[in-house]
């Protein structure tokens, strides 16, 4: 039976090529795997092998012919002894490709948006005072007591008791099998932790700071975040990556970067940045239980700050639910993490000037509680965002764009984004102070949107 030889696609992007040279002539016997032609693609001249065996019945395209479309019949093979004219067999037909219709997301009507923000614990719950550091430690210890597959891995988490003392005492309670000191080898131990999560564990990976996670970001993005999708839902990755993020004090450019917007851009990750100790505890417990990779961004300056934490046996906070720290009517200030320090301080200063600011802590950056932000902006008609990260492609940029698309008619002023300055972090004390966001800058931004 005659077989048509088709012009092959020899690269991912090839649509046509030049049939540079035939290495067989009509009447020749061809074996499977024999090189029969040279084909010039957009990249290179390639040898083209026969797949089937037979006798060359016809060469349909002369050598030297340019712009031969992929899948054009270029020759016909017949069985030995078969007539050269017997070219009855049609080319194998490919299933008709279905073209995906591109469906643009319709602009949502700016109406009926209800805030998701609500109390995290019932009124009258007994409270205890603890630092963010203690809250993080308590969250990990409680989850490790409940689930034997939860384990902590990182540099100096065990014997040293934690570079920032977050894991202090955990080695004593849980032993070296579950509190694993690693060599200084971020890419390697992050890959091992992701594999361990696929193997059935729930690892918590502590990065001494997220600056060092840059060495491991391939495994965070390409291995942890994308595999559930790439496997059609077979291989989820229950893992928490946590550690200090953003500027500490006087540690220079390589140790002072806020990566929130970077990670928040990646589908497949969840991204958390707590401000208070209660949020640190409730959100970290939630993160450890989540079946997905969670980026949990802490801040060195916040570790020692004390807050009231509910004294509840099993206290978690769901992701995607912002917290309204202060209700107001004139302007909405949206922040997260250490940015909340400046947002709340600014709100106090503004109150003295007679401006009532509503202050929202996003708490999770993926998912983001858009509804609480939009409901607030629809009430106050003004919005200022506050974060420590770089200005280009910031969380504030994303919020400003979302507010513009979904609540444009409610705005009485442009959304103003307050961020760190667009410079590597300087070491000199005065310059570092200038590079970071301040409450005074937030006050100035709010006054500008209030036209005061």
């Amino acid at each position: 039976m005659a077989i048509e030889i088709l012009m092959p696609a020899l690269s991912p992007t090839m649509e046509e090529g030049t049939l540079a040279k035939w290495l067989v002539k009509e009447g020749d016997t061809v074996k499977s795997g024999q090189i029969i032609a040279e084909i010039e693609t957009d990249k290179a001249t390639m040898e083209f092998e026969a797949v089937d065996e037979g006798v060359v019945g016809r060469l349909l395209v002369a050598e030297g012919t340019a712009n031969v479309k992929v899948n054009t019949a270029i020759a016909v093979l017949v069985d030995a002894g078969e007539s050269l004219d017997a070219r009855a067999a049609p080319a194998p037909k490919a299933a008709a490709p279905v073209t995906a219709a591109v469906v643009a997301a319709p602009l949502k009507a700016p109406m009926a948006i209800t805030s998701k923000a609500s109390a995290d614990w019932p009124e009258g719950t007994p409270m205890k005072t603890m630092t963010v550091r203690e809250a993080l430690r308590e969250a990990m210890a409680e989850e490790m007591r409940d689930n034997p597959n939860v384990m902590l891995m990182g540099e100096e988490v065990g014997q040293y008791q934690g570079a920032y003392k977050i894991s202090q005492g955990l080695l004593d309670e849980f032993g070296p099998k579950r509190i694993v000191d690693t060599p200084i080898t971020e890419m390697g131990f992050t890959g091992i932790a992701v594999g361990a999560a696929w193997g059935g564990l729930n690892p918590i990976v502590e990065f001494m700071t997220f600056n060092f996670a840059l060495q491991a970001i391939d495994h965070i993005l390409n291995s942890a975040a994308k595999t559930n999708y790439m496997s059609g839902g077979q291989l989820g990755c229950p893992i928490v990556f946590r550690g200090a993020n953003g500027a500490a004090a006087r540690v220079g450019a390589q140790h002072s970067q806020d990566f929130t917007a970077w990670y928040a851009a990646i589908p497949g990750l969840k991204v958390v940045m707590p401000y208070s100790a209660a949020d640190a505890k409730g959100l970290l417990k939630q993160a450890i239980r989540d079946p997905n990779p969670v980026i949990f961004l802490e801040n060195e300056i916040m570790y020692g700050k004390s807050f009231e934490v509910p004294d509840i046996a099993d206290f978690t906070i769901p992701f995607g639910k912002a917290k309204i720290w202060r209700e107001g009517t004139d302007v909405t200030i949206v922040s997260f993490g250490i940015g909340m320090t400046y947002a709340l301080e600014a709100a106090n200063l503004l109150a003295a000037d007679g401006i009532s600011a509503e202050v929202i802590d996003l708490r999770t950056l993926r998912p983001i509680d858009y509804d609480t932000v939009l409901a607030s902006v629809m009430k106050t008609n003004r919005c200022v965002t506050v974060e420590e990260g770089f200005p280009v492609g910031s969380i504030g940029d994303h919020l400003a764009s979302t507010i513009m698309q979904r609540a444009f008619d409610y705005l009485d002023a442009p959304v103003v984004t307050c961020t760190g300055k667009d410079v590597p972090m300087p070491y000199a004390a005065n310059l570092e102070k200038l590079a970071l966001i301040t409450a005074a800058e937030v006050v100035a931004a709010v006054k500008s949107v209030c036209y005061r």
Partner: protein
Amino acid sequence: MAAKKSPEKSNVSKDDLLKYYREMLLIRRFEEKAGQLYGMGLIGGFCHLYIGQEAVVVGLEACTKEGDKRITSYRDHGHMLACGMGAKGVMAELTGRSGGYSRGKGGSMHMFSREKHFYGGHGIVGAQVPLGAGLAFADKYKGNDNVTFAYFGDGAANQGQVYETYNMAELWALPVIFVIENNHYAMGTSQARSTKSETLFGRGLAYGIPGEQVDGMDVLAVQAAGAKAVAHCRAGNGPYILEMMTYRYRGHSMSDPAKYRTREEVQKMKDEKDAIEHVRDLLLNAGLASEDDLKTIDKDIKDIVNESAEFAKESPEPELSELYTNIYA
């Protein structure tokens, strides 16, 4: 090639030889068909064929037991077939159809099977090495005696994360077998142009990991070395390195003009070292199978491969709603 040969007088059974023949032939015919479908435009993007290297996975899979895990690079079709994943599901993933192992969302380089303990299919060169050690970490943590096979090439062997992993795998005595499939070319760069190291397994010695070079074109030699490595790992002695000296007949990917090696070099390997011909000769010369017996196997394999191709063409593309599924578990 200074690699170890199979024993002169092999005590391998007829059944085993027939099994190896069948499994290697399935991979070869499957890959030839995949190459054909690529040429027809039914398979897109990148497609890395395993033709020539079949003895490596078939020989090592013969050493596994239920619960053992495997993970590899983007040249993964052979590994999937060898561990028992269905040809239809693999081929349909290559064509990007809903019947594929990843429902069409992974492609040639990104397939997985929880059921068969196959953990991919990874497109970033070398990434599968720490990931594989992590699978072994989980087994050790849980206290079972399973082992993980982490396959990578001579190209990946120059990635830093491989050595970070060697260090921790030996430090923590992880039950992982590092299988270096040394096919001599990292895409188009020969080993001699990449490193002054004479062997690749030898680098593991610096971390305290034992290893050896094996004739990866000889499925019996592979099986024998694999059995030794598995025994080492299962006994809790930590990792082991097998450097499989092998050869890929086709280009690095479908768009490789292969100008970095001579046609004679490739032909010489096909003529003198072909893994399938080797087992075929063993079977025929020892009178363990007749030409007719082997023809029957050839036909069976051809049918399986043709059916997989038909399935891969007929399986529908994913529903458009699948765009937004499986982002989160």
